[in-house]
């Protein structure tokens, strides 16, 4: 499955990109998290959440092919 990953805030700095497409052979957000932490070891130091279809999801969430967002702590206002 090819999925778009979008990086926000400090995570865009860490990965040095705003988004990328990954061809993956995994089914869950948790598996994606493990895969990304191999690709970007620095991510382990940061707190972040995942979102899919504009909703925060936990690691058990199935990947459905929509873009997945990596969101650091919110700091609006």
């Amino acid at each position, binding site marked *: 499955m090819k999925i778009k990953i979008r990086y926000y805030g400090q995570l865009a700095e860490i990965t040095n990109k705003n988004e990328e497409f990954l061809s993956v052979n995994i089914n869950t957000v948790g598996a994606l998290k493990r895969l990304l932490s191999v690709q970007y070891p620095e991510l382990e130091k940061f707190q972040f959440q995942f*979102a899919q279809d504009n909703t925060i999801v936990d690691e058990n969430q199935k990947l459905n092919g929509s873009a997945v967002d990596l969101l650091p702590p919110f*700091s*609006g206002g």
Partner: protein
Amino acid sequence: MKKEEIKNIFRVGAIDPISISKSIANHQSKTTIGAHSIFLGQVRADAIDGNEVTAIEYTAQSEMANKICHEIKEAAFAQYKLSCMHIYHSLGIVKKGELCFFVFVSGPHRKSVFKALPQIVDEIKDKLPIFGKEIFKDASHQWKINQ
């Protein structure tokens, strides 16, 4: 209260105080309103180790932020007796002293708007995927943490 569509709360750059006074003026025709309450967020020139914040650069997952903001508004309309609500947040660079966040709540009486406003402001700060990068005088930066 009729169902509203999802609105885009984001504006590029600082929020112009003149647009705020226009927004207030636009309510003069809505004569069931008896009370307005407004929150304005302003960029603070925090000093950290002698280095001063000169601006905040905001980015966001805008689609998600607009969706969640819509849900916060709908919940507030369901909970309190309100007539209307206007919310704007900046994207991109906002310099120190400029406004980055505008929440404007109106209702027939003061009590409902006094209660609704802080709840809406807090929920927006807690739940919307918006990210502030504090830019210092020497061009270094740090990522804003909400208190």
